[in-house]
C-alpha cells in the first residue's frame, strides 16, 4: 500500500507553518505504521487498541494544545491536523483522543483546582490514565440542560445519583468528568473508578465506532469528597465549552474521513477496468462523484483553517464551530456514500475502508450536537430565534415588529 500523501487541490499547504506540517506528517506516519495495519481487525472484533495508548501519549497526542506539564502547546490548526490524520484512519480512534483531550484534560485544566491539575494532567497526557466525559443521559441528548443526574451536598462531600449514556471510554476510564444538577446549577465533578456507588458497563450491538468503547455510567448514592468538584464550573456553559473544543476537532477529523474515502474511490476508479478495457474513471458519472468529493473537501479545508486561525486568536464563536462541524461531517457522510457507490460490492466489505467510515460517520453525524441541532444553532445566530426551544417571546416578537411598523 502506498503512503497517503494528502489531499491538497488548492495548494493550501503553504498556508500551514512548518511546525504544523511536521506535526501532521508525524501523526500521519504514526497512523500509517501503527494504526492502519490493525484497524480492520479492531473494527471486526469491536475492540479499542489499548496497546497503542502509551505510544500515543509518548507522541503527545493527548492534551496537545496545553503548554504546561511538558505538553506541546500546539496551535489549534496543528491540533486540528492531528484530528484529521487520526480520523483518516478511524472515527473511533479520533474519538478516543478527542475525549481524552477536549472533554477530560481541557475541563480539568480550565476548571480544575491546582491539585486536580497536578494529579491528572500529567497522568492523562502520558496515557497512564484514561478519562471519560459524562454529560448525555438516556433521556437527555440534544437538551443536556434537562439532565436528571443530581449532586447533593452531604456533610463535607457530595452524593451523586443518576445515569449517563453513550459515554466514550466509559469502562476504560480511570477518571470520569461528570456533570450534575446541584442547588447552584449544573456543575462538574471528577469521579474516580472504583468509587462505591459508581458503576459502568459497555453498550453492545453497535454497528458504528466499533473500534471505540461506548458505555453507560450509573451513580447510586455515590459519595464523593468535597474536592471532587471542579471548582471553576458554574453552570451548563462549562460543559458546552468542553463540547466546543471537541466539536472544533471533529470538524477537522471529519475531513480526514472524507479524504480517506475519496482517495480510496479515486484509486479504485483509476484501476477498476470494465467496459472496453477502460477504467471506470473514464465515465462521466464516476468523475462527477469524484469531483464533488474533492470540491467539498477543499471547501471544508478552507473552513477549518480559518476556524483554527480564529481559535488561535481566541475569536472563534460557538456558532462558527457549529458551521464547521455540521458541514464537514455532512461532507464526510456524503463522501462515504459516493465512494461506496464507486466501489460497488467492494464498498461493503472491509478489504476497503469505505464501509467502516460510512458506518462510523453515522455516529459522528449525530454526536457532539446533531447535524440538525447545529443547523438551529446557526439559525439562532442569524435570526435571533432559538428554534429548538422557542420561548414565547420569540414567537411574539415578529408580531410586535408588525405592530411597531403600524
Amino acid at each position, binding site marked *: 500500500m502506498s503512503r497517503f500523501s494528502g489531499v491538497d487541490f488548492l495548494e493550501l499547504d503553504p498556508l500551514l507553518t512548518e511546525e504544523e506540517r*511536521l506535526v501532521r506528517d508525524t501523526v500521519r506516519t504514526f497512523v500509517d505504521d501503527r494504526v492502519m495495519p490493525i484497524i480492520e481487525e479492531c473494527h471486526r472484533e469491536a475492540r479499542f487498541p489499548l496497546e497503542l495508548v502509551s505510544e500515543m501519549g509518548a*507522541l503527545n497526542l493527548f492534551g496537545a494544545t496545553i503548554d504546561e506539564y511538558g505538553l*506541546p502547546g500546539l496551535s489549534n490548526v496543528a491540533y486540528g491536523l492531528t484530528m484529521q490524520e487520526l480520523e483518516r484512519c478511524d472515527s473511533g480512534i479520533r474519538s478516543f483522543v478527542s475525549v481524552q483531550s477536549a472533554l477530560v484534560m481541557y475541563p480539568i485544566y480550565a476548571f480544575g483546582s491546582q491539585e486536580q491539575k497536578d494529579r491528572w494532567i500529567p497522568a492523562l497526557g502520558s496515557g497512564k490514565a484514561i478519562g471519560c466525559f459524562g454529560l448525555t443521559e438516556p433521556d437527555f441528548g440534544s437538551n443536556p440542560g434537562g439532565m436528571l443526574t443530581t449532586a447533593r451536598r452531604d456533610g463535607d462531600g457530595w452524593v451523586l445519583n443518576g445515569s449517563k449514556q453513550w459515554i466514550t471510554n466509559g469502562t476504560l476510564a480511570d477518571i470520569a468528568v461528570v456533570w450534575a444538577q446541584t442547588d447552584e446549577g449544573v456543575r462538574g465533578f471528577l469521579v474516580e473508578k472504583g468509587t462505591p456507588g459508581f458503576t459502568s458497563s459497555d453498550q453492545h450491538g453497535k454497528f458504528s465506532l466499533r473500534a471505540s468503547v461506548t458505555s453507560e455510567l450509573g451513580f447510586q448514592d455515590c459519595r464523593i469528597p468535597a474536592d471532587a468538584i471542579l471548582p471553576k464550573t458554574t453552570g451548563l456553559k462549562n460543559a458546552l465549552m468542553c463540547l466546543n473544543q471537541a466539536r472544533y476537532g471533529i470538524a477537522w477529523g471529519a475531513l480526514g474521513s472524507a479524504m480517506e474515502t475519496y482517495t480510496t474511490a479515486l484509486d479504485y476508479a483509476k484501476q477498476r477496468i470494465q467496459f472496453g478495457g477502460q477504467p471506470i474513471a473514464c465515465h462521466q458519472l464516476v468523475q462527477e462523484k469524484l469531483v464533488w468529493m474533492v470540491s467539498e473537501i477543499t471547501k471544508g479545508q478552507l473552513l477549518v483553517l480559518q476556524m483554527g486561525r480564529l481559535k488561535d486568536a481566541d475569536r472563534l464563536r460557538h456558532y462558527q464551530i457549529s458551521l464547521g462541524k455540521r458541514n464537514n461531517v455532512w461532507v464526510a457522510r456524503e463522501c462515504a456514500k459516493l465512494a461506496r457507490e464507486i466501489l460497488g460490492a467492494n464498498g461493503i466489505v472491509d478489504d476497503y475502508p469505505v464501509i467502516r467510515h460510512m458506518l462510523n460517520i453515522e455516529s459522528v453525524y449525530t454526536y457532539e450536537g446533531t447535524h440538525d441541532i447545529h443547523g438551529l444553532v446557526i439559525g439562532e445566530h442569524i435570526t435571533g430565534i432559538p428554534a429548538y426551544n422557542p420561548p414565547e417571546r420569540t414567537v411574539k416578537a415578529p408580531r410586535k415588529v408588525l405592530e411597531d411598523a403600524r
Partner: protein
Amino acid sequence: MRIAVCIKQVPDTEARLRLRKDGRWVDEEDLPFVINESDEYALEEALTLAEKTGGEVVVLSLGPARVKEALRKALALGAQRAVHLQDEAFEGGDAPATARALHAALSRESFDLVLTGSQSDDNGYGATASVLAGLLGWPHAWLVMGVELEEGGASLKVVREMESGMNEIVRIATPAVIEVQAGINHPRYASLKGIMQAKRKPQEVLTAADLGLDPAVVGAAGSRLEVVSVAFPSTGAGAQMIEGDAATAARVLVEKLRNEARVL
C-alpha cells in the same frame, strides 16, 4: 560523547520524478523532499548512543534553503543543534567536493564520532563519508548493521554486512566515521513537544567564506565528476509476461530465474 550526524535531503522515493529541462537532473519544482532513509537510521543510532553516554548530537546538512526542513525534523527528533552548509558555491558537488565542505565544518569543533547513512537515495555514490574519513584521517566502516560502545566510548564494536549473508565484526578506535544501513534500528517518531521545541534550538548557517574555503574546491567548481545527463531506463525491453495460474506461473518463474537469469 559528541556525535555529528551528516544527513542529506533527497526526493521522496515515492514521488513521481520529471527530468529538468537541461536533462542533467530531476525537476525539483513541487517535488517532495525527505531525509535520506539510511541517514534517518544514523540519526536514531546517534540519539540512542547519546542517551547512553549523556552526549550531544549535532546534525549537519549541505544543500539549498529547503534543507532547513530536514534539519528541523532532526532537531524535533532530538538532535541538540543543527548546522546548515548553505552556499551556491556548494551546489552540484561530487563526493570529494561535498566531503571537503563537511570536513571544514566538522573540523571547527571536536567530535568523537561521525554517523551517516551508507548511501543516498538520489545520487547513491556511497562515497562521501569515505572521502570525509580520509580527510579527517579517521578509521571508517561502511554498511554497518550495529554499533556497540566499548571501553567507555574509546572504541566501538561494529557489525558490518558482507556478501553472502555473512557479518563481519570489527573494532574501531574513536574518533571514527560510521556509515549505517537502513533497517538497523527503529527510528523514533518526533514527539509533538519535540516539534514545538525544535525552532528554539540553535541552527547555524555556514557559507564557504565562513569556513575559509576557496569556492574553487567545493561544489561543481571543485568536482572532477560532471553529470552529463540523467534519463529513465527504457521500458518494455527485456520484460516477459508469465501467463497461467499462480502455481504454474511460479514454476515457470523459478525455471527462468534458474536457467535464463541464472540467479538461483
